[in-house]
């Protein structure tokens, strides 16, 4: 029997998606920053023009977690565009519950999704202190654009967006 299956997310997965988002945010000590709701996740991921896509990792019943979950991991991604090289895949979140790690759960699925959709590359963000993840990706040929090319990611929040759009 397989250890786990990977499948595209369905609307019924929304509660698990939010649960896993919060678990990952807790690990990053940012749990209070998650303001997204199940309603928004449902609307934004399963409407006519989805803002994101999700892959879920599920284990059989007999391998349920101590809290009774069979959905034990997810990857959230969407497509972006680089005007020099074309379509890209952006990996927004990638998380597997602690007790199920080490099974190389999502990496292949996500990366083959990128290749199958004819994306020229995949982008993602890693926190500087997360050395294991940085090393994991660097060993597989990823480049640290912040370090190598000096890119800094900026953000404008809604309050300033409103001011900017009124000018």
């Amino acid at each position, binding site marked *: 029997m397989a250890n786990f299956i990977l499948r595209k997310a369905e609307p019924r997965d929304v509660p698990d998606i939010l649960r896993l988002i919060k678990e990952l945010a807790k690990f990053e000590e940012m749990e209070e920053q998650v303001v997204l709701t199940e309603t928004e996740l449902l609307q934004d991921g399963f409407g006519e023009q989805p803002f994101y896509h999700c892959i879920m990792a599920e284990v059989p019943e007999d391998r349920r977690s101590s809290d009774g979950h069979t959905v034990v991991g997810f990857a959230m991604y969407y497509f972006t565009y680089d005007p020099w090289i074309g379509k890209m895949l952006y990996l927004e979140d990638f998380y597997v519950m602690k007790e199920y790690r080490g099974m190389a759960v999502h990496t*292949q699925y996500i990366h083959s999704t990128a290749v199958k959709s004819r994306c020229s590359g995949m982008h993602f963000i890693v926190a500087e202190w997360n050395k294991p993840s940085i090393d994991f990706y660097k060993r597989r040929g990823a480049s640290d654009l912040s370090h190598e090319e000096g890119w800094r990611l900026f953000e404008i929040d809604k309050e300033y967006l409103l001011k900017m759009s009124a000018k």
Partner: protein
Amino acid sequence: MDYTIRVATLEDCKDIYRMIMELAKHEKVSDQVKIAQRDLEQDGFSKNPFFQSIIAEVPEQHRSKDGHSKVGYALYFFAYSSWKGRSVYMEDLYVMPEYRGKGIGKALMSKIAQLGLAAGCNQLNFAVLNWNKESMDFYLSQGCWDVTTGLDYHCMRCEGPALEALARGDPKN
């Protein structure tokens, strides 16, 4: 100087491509542009576009010396934050050198903010090179903040053979 900001159409791809190449040439990296004009047309103007764009246009009497009236563009797409939901990512913002200093760049960015808010977005994200102090200072003065410094986030990329190897699950230790 008078100018208009409007949503780009398929016919604008020629000028968008021209300006992408201008920007790349200016940065002395035009060999890094791997896409052709038809890729822009396909990727931006089919049923499920991978990007959106807006154009800055000037009237006939203000055409550039090469005869161009489309003098700036911005390229953006919708993204998603697993913490906050819908967001918009500004990928490119460019104004031809002779048209700078007239508020066109700011107007293009303002239009993206409007379109983003209309689509239900909570944030606008973009990247700036660390040597571009003038731009960084401008964005900071507009209320933006530097996520790379503030949260120690590094922007990573995996492409070409590395992406294919990752997809195959090649063992790496």
